[in-house]
């Protein structure tokens, strides 16, 4: 265990408060104005929409709220969303660790190219992310005839929704881990290997404890996006009620049928998830700073 102590990263925190002086401060009026602008902007764009979701959800009473979230179609949507997340997030987490390992522990030609490709889904519109799987597996698609002959449904069914979600959320974990593992370098792993530990043991006992908060953070972000993905899933889902509707698609249908209270009731569930994500994110940031 000694080897890990002398490679601890240098803390670069600077004590800002001690160096504050009048020459480095804006006049009070400017300070207040800027703070007011920032807070007003956040109030109108972030806080008010969030509050309005919960108020609209309960507008027609608690009964309507619970009827909306326990409706069979809503429960089916919740179940489908959870299944999609349960498949997508672990796959992208494993990929993220693998990609970060390859891209940070080794030097090879074409590294930057691979890095760009990992990032690619972020640059692609969700609608296109759905479209590409229609082109592959749809009835007119590349594998369309073969899939039809073997009676396999990918598009307008669970596999299509999973594939589109994997595509959209693919970079999240890798993007969190790559900069983190870059700064940690390879010396701890080299020490472990030269002391006779196996590759897997080194990963489990040396690397994983170092990256656990970053990994957790990436998983949380990936999870939030996988639950909430709308555009890509909308293209490949086929909108079959109770069958291929995820939670965001269920919200869309309710909203378009002017069932606002019900739409916002389901939306409030997803908002709770979003708030939970923000809280966990804050805890992780605090934990990783203190450790």
């Amino acid at each position: 265990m000694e080897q890990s102590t002398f490679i601890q990263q240098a803390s670069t925190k600077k004590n800002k408060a001690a160096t504050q002086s009048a020459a480095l401060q804006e006049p009070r009026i400017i300070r207040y104005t800027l703070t007011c602008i920032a807070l007003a902007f956040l109030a109108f764009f972030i806080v008010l929409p969030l509050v309005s979701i919960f108020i609209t959800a309960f507008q027609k009473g608690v009964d309507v709220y619970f009827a909306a979230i326990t409706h069979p179609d809503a429960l089916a949507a919740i179940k489908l969303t959870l299944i999609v997340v349960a498949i997508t997030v672990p796959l992208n987490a494993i990929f993220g660790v693998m990609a970060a390992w390859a891209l940070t522990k080794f030097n090879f030609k074409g590294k930057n190219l691979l890095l760009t490709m990992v990032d690619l889904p972020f640059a692609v519109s969700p609608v296109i992310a759905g479209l590409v799987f229609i082109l592959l597996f749809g009835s007119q698609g590349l594998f369309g005839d073969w899939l039809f002959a073997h009676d396999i449904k990918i598009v307008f069914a669970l596999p299509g929704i999973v594939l589109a979600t994997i595509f959209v959320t693919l970079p999240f974990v890798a993007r969190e881990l790559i900069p983190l593992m870059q700064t940690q370098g390879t010396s701890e792993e080299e020490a472990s290997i030269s002391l006779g530990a196996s590759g897997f043991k080194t990963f489990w006992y040396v690397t994983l404890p170092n990256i656990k908060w970053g990994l957790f953070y990436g998983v949380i972000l990936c999870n939030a996006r996988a639950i909430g993905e709308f555009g890509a899933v909308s293209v490949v889902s086929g909108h079959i009620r109770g069958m291929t509707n995820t939670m965001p698609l269920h919200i869309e249908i309710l909203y378009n049928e002017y069932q606002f209270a019900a739409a916002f009731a389901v939306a409030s569930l997803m908002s709770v998830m979003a708030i939970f994500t923000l809280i966990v994110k804050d805890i992780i940031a605090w934990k990783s700073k203190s450790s």
Partner: protein
Amino acid sequence: MSSLIIPKKSRRIIPGFHLSLGYTMLYVSLLVLLPLSMIFIHTMSLSWSAFIDIITDPRAVASYKVSFSTALIAGLLNVIFGTIIAWVLVRYQFPFKRIIDGLVDLPFALPTAVAGIALTSLYAPNGWIGQFFNFKIAFTPLGIIIALTFIGLPFVVRTVQPVLQNISAEVEEASASLGANRLQTFRKVILPELVPAILTGFSLAFARALGEYGSVVFIAGNMPMKTEITPLIIMTKLEQYDYAGATAIAVVMLVTSFILLFTINLIQWLANRRFVH
């Protein structure tokens, strides 16, 4: 001399190179490259003139204008307000600062459809905010701008914030002791440090806004030629089983996104180079 250079292979003490690289390449190829290449392969089935006809159709061109101009305005709004928010969060103290800081990330965590219906009901003519205006906000390009500003806000704040945190007080002290007033220090010392981060944040927000679908469809009203965004054109063509048309429009969007991605990387490369020498 050559004996001093350690051969590349022997430096790989850490195991798992072939496994991790192979897995990464396979995963990315099957799930990203192969699907994306379908866009270009499928477009090949169109003749050049048919392709040009689809992408220069007046309704498509109108949608490029709507998407581009609203994304640009939203990006600029994010630059202004995002920088102010980052500044206030880094430099000033006020109550509930930590909670407010955390809330900036809400657009990343909140599903886009939820954001879409919430913003629409707020800014609709009879909504909490919309009722105070004697012109329409939701169902006009203004509504699209609001949705895209919401989506893009964290990009600018979260790229500017760490840079602002890392500007050392000594630099500002030096500037002040040499007689610069606060505005001069900001313009000549602080702002040049922030520009690469602001540009990166802007490009990220802009790129996201160009492709955004979920939050916009509810608030846009989706009137052809007026408030129809490009992703919606793809969606409409798909619903009519016009795969060739949808793919042609997708090529336009993809090429635009790739140019943007390239620009972002170029900005970051130029910004990093500044500190090297």
